[in-house]
């Protein structure tokens, strides 16, 4: 195999299914978050009681609602990829729009939560837990923003074409994979930040 072919960048002639090259990015990003989780949990060991006391100030209901929002948005985007492969353009547009509208709820709740914390005098400077809370959710929020942008670009592209072509299908699949990563990173962040401090 020539070195110029990225792992998994299978051509159409190959029998293996197409594997998007964005997986390289996903793997590196997940590994980075793994390091961040490790840093948070090891720093927590220095003073678990103080971390738990601060964690209990977080509103589990907001975290839960945001988890349900991201899962549902991810589900709609997964359905949109299936629609693209059926060449069902109206369903693709509808489902992408649905994913964006539901996904927007995450920003509303997260920004509300940040505003409530800051209004209560809680900032990244408050203590170690909140330093990490703002840093970890902030890095995740940047991913979320990039993901929403990707979905908007995909929707715009889907609205401009008359029929689904291979390029659009691949773009929806690759963009979808990024959006699912935003979801799965939150699935670890939510219990680690919100729930562990609440178990008794």
């Amino acid at each position, binding site marked *: 195999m020539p070195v110029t072919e990225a792992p998994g960048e299978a051509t159409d002639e190959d029998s293996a299914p197409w594997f998007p090259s964005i997986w390289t990015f996903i793997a590196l990003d997940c*590994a980075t978050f793994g390091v961040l989780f490790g840093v948070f949990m090891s720093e927590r060991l220095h003073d678990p009681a103080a971390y738990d006391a601060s964690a209990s100030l977080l509103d589990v209901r907001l975290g839960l609602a945001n988890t349900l929002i991201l*899962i549902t948005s991810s589900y709609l985007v997964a359905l949109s990829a299936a629609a693209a492969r059926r060449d069902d353009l109206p369903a693709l547009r509808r489902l992408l729009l649905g994913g964006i509208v539901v996904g927007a709820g995450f920003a509303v709740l997260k920004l509300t939560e940040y505003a409530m914390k800051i209004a209560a005098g809680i900032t990244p400077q408050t203590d170690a837990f909140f*330093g990490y809370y703002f840093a970890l959710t902030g890095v995740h929020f940047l991913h979320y923003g990039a993901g929403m942008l990707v979905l908007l670009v995909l929707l715009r592209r889907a609205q401009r074409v008359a029929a689904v072509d291979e390029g659009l299908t691949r773009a929806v699949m690759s963009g979808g994979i990024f959006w699912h990563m935003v979801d799965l990173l939150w699935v*670890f962040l939510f219990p680690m930040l919100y729930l*562990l401090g*609440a178990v008794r």
Partner: protein
Amino acid sequence: MNVRTAGTRTLHLTWAALILATLFGVGTAQLLGHPLLAAAAIMVVAGGKIFLILRNFMELHQGPLAYRLFFASWIVACVVGISASFAFSLFNTSARASTGLLNSSSAPQGDGTPVSAPRSNGSGPGLKAD
């Protein structure tokens, strides 16, 4: 393009399973008696959810073995690492409490104590906790 289409039925079922698992995870945090069991259950449920997202939404099961192995190890490492760290903090706290090293729910940390937390400039407004 050679793509095996993921059945929409699989996607519907995955979504339902993820929602139920999320509610179960939050319920566990509030209801399960033992903190270590609760924490382990929460993290295992989270790992299971991530497996479902990777497999059915992101269609990783069609990918190369190296990627599947990487993500499987990543999930296991995160679940085990976070749970183990939580368990260690529990034992450590109870050991310190039983030897009288820990007097209250929060370890004292005066100005002279070496600071292990990220903040050390002391300019924050302080917790509004009661």
